[in-house]
């Protein structure tokens, strides 16, 4: 009888120690996940931003020739609102360069892409 009681006490002690260790592991893993959640979110943002920028460039192709200026707009992707800025400058007569910046509205996780456009309507410039 005495031996059984001692064993129960010993097992109960191990159970609590095990629980504490497992809780510590769980907390540690949660902490690690929290640490990387920001990185995952950043990658997700950049992925969506790239998708939006790609869509914009695919519609602005062919004989399209942009007007010089700065154009701001926004779009929602994956439930998140993204700010889009297009800056068009003339690098030489008949050649314009368009930079597209897409990222979170607060300016974070912004990707930048650039393309040149040529004025095919007014040649021999």
């Amino acid at each position, binding site marked *: 009888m005495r*031996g059984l009681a*001692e064993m129960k006490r010993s097992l109960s002690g191990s159970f609590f120690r095990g629980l504490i260790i497992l809780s510590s592991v769980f907390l540690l893993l949660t902490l690690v996940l929290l640490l*990387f959640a920001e990185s995952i979110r950043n990658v997700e943002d950049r992925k969506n931003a790239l998708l939006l920028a790609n869509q914009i460039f695919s519609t602005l192709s062919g004989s399209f020739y942009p007007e010089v200026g700065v154009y701001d707009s926004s779009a929602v992707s994956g439930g998140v609102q993204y700010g889009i800025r297009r800056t068009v400058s003339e690098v030489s007569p008949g050649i314009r360069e368009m930079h597209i910046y897409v990222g979170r509205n607060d300016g974070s996780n912004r990707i930048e892409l650039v393309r040149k456009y040529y004025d095919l309507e007014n040649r021999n410039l």
Partner: protein
Amino acid sequence: MKYSKETKNRKIGSGVSIPAVTLAVFSSAVVMISLVLLVNYISGVVDRQAALEESVQVQLTEESAVAGLNMDLMNSNIRDFSDIPVYSLGGLDTSFRMVGTSAVPPLELTWRSQGSRILSALPVGKNIFVLSEYDNGLRIDLLTGTDVENSVEVLLIPEWNAEQYSIAGSSCSGSPVLFLLTRTLGREYVTIVSPETGSESYNVSLPFWNESSLLSAGCIGGKPALLISEGTNQAQLFIQDSLPLLTVSSPPGTTPVFYGQDQLYGSMDGSYTENGKYPIYSVLQDDFDENGSDDLLFIGSGSLSFVSEASGSFILDTLPGGRLLAWGLTERDMILSAKWIEGTSHERWRALTEEGFADSAGPEFHPFNWEGRLASSRNSIIGSIDGSIIIADENSEKLITVCNTQNAVLCELDGEDLDLIYTDNDLLTILLNPLDGDGLILTLRSVTYNDDTILSENIWNIQIYGNIHNRRVQYERAG
């Protein structure tokens, strides 16, 4: 005592049990492995994202480079195809190396009607109105420039039972407008069709109208207007929202027409009495005297009248007993020439000089049985022979039959050189710049790189058509 001994054996050091240590070790291992896997995964995702962003920029740099090459080729900035400049953008460079060259025939674009047979194709500026049968009705589509893949249906008449119809077109306030003149149950209607405003029909009472009547469309005070002429020097003028019809007259040997930018050749004050001595069956507008402004050429069966827009001078040429068979710009010097037949077969060519029309030898290199309108370039001449549109090439001395004359029209859809539109059943074909002869196809390898790292390689086919003054370039990725 035995129990107590075993229990003591399960403890080490300061009273921590062996299972607890094992659990702690395994847990630590799980945490470490998870951490390593997570770090690897995250860094992999970040690297892949970075590579994806770079590949998109590589693609944009390459596309920009090809567009730049296109521009340089159009402007004839590249004299030597083995020395193509390097194009830079976004910190990346794209270079081109020639793989091969070959000749390609003039570019042909085709468009198939959603209806059945194409009845008519009418070029208006850089647009083409296409009328086709649609079950029991009529369908009208609009093609914009050479972008044949994006046609627009502008009108569908489900039940169309017109006994007779004629069409004319013009650009009014920047928008292409089609006039459809029909006779249904003995009554005449003018239908104005526009992609901007749809269609409007007006019942008109015409004193004359048959299939050989001449129609000319234009714009008066911002409103679409239509001239209907029997070929004499008088015409009926219809203006949208303004009835009845007005009478317009012009000098004998001409007929009232619209020309240039909504200008009317003719007067509405009755300056000229009706004169049917020189019936006109065709009017041509071009810069025949090469002074930078379009002139008018009135073609009759026995008369040819030239009206210079710049000077306003009017030259009428007739040959007693002669029939006018062919006319247009011929030879390298682009001389306005006309082919007449005197009696039954005596051929005589007359050319426009500063003193008026004078006898000439005719097209030196192409002494064929031309009929109707002629047009020339440095090496080729296009016209009609025995009911077919023919291109005669001076270099190869070949005659190339293109299509039937009946369903063909020459126009300037793309640039300043003539293009040919023709239809066959439900197919419309645009032959771009046929007078420029064959084009050249360049096969180029593009390499996009950053410092010494090659990021992308592609093969491009660059098609170059036209001459040094009007060059057209098309490109596509070959592989």
